[in-house]
């Protein structure tokens, strides 16, 4: 990895050590290793991202309520501080939820995810949902080791969000459009939004729903259920 080259300046000799290494290389390797471990255990890890206030926690409560009798689930809530989200999920669904504190950091990486997973009962689980820190920039850079990245975009945020945060939309192949009950009150063009997302990621699956009323949640829950089953069923191949 390191090549020694010497600069022969007599008064002030400076040695240059060439490194040429991506800063994300270690994390990417760590994330791949974590994914392989999860595959061997038959545990599906979903990395859920969004901006603050898009309704991640409410969407999770609705979705997981539909799945909790069919799958063994745990939730890891990542925030800079507080445990309000973990408490809310546990109270509303009875699903075990733990709170991860990032210590001021705006994202989770694979190592932090691994530490979080050590706090849940992995052998007894089918699905772990990681609710990443509310942020559309930084979490997109760091592979957590999740099987899939999903993000939530809510109607009040605007239909042009995919244009402003291209990386987030290119790493997420599943996009939930939340709060569709307020569509009549916003200049939000659902078709245009779909177009913008597909432009960033032609393979994206899009689920318009309203976590508050429950509209459209079943389609998202059914998709997630199918994902978990196929991940588990192909585990030994």
């Amino acid at each position, binding site marked *: 990895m390191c090549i020694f080259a010497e600069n022969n300046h007599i008064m002030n000799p*400076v040695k240059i050590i060439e*490194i*040429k*290494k991506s*800063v994300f290389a270690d994390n990417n390797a760590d994330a791949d290793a974590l994914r392989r471990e999860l595959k061997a255990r038959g545990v599906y890890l979903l990395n859920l991202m969004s901006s603050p206030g898009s309704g991640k926690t409410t969407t999770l409560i609705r979705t997981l309520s539909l799945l909790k009798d069919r799958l063994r689930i745990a939730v890891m809530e990542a925030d800079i501080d507080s445990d309000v989200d973990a408490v809310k999920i546990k109270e509303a669904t009875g699903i075990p939820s733990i709170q991860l504190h990032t210590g001021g950091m*705006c994202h989770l990486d694979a190592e932090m995810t691994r530490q979080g997973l050590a706090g849940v009962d992995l052998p007894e689980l089918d699905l772990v949902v990681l609710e990443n820190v509310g942020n559309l920039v930084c979490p997109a*850079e760091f592979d957590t080791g999740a099987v899939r990245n999903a993000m939530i975009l809510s109607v009040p945020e605007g239909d042009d969000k995919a244009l402003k945060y291209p990386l987030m939309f290119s790493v997420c192949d599943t996009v939930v459009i939340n709060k569709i009950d307020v569509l009549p009150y916003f200049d939000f063009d659902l078709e245009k939004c779909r177009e913008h997302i597909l432009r*960033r990621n032609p393979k994206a699956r899009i689920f318009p729903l309203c976590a508050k009323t429950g509209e459209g949640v079943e389609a998202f829950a059914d998709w997630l259920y199918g994902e978990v089953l196929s991940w588990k069923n192909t585990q030994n191949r």
Partner: protein
Amino acid sequence: MHELGIVFYIIKDVKEAAEANGVQKVSAVVMNIGEVSTVVPEYLTDCWRWAADKEEMLRGCELKVNLLPAVSYCESCQCEYPTVQYGKTCPNCQSDRTYLLKGNEVEIKEIEV
């Protein structure tokens, strides 16, 4: 502010490289940062100052940033164009069938010791 997280990764890699080469003190770290990497060089150097000074080996060590241009490629007309100026749409033929060739780098180029 993912720059702080990135700085922690840089520190880890630089310390490893320095130890592997038997170096006690690093005077500068040179980074290659692509224009569309989402890393803001000013934030990176600010975070670097704060974090590097906590490490004996890196106290006073300078972080130098080479900003690399972003270039996209158009599959429709096979041309290359500057990404920052034109984004996803090819300025030559207006196609959206384009992808980034380079400009996404967040890479440690070398260290000076």
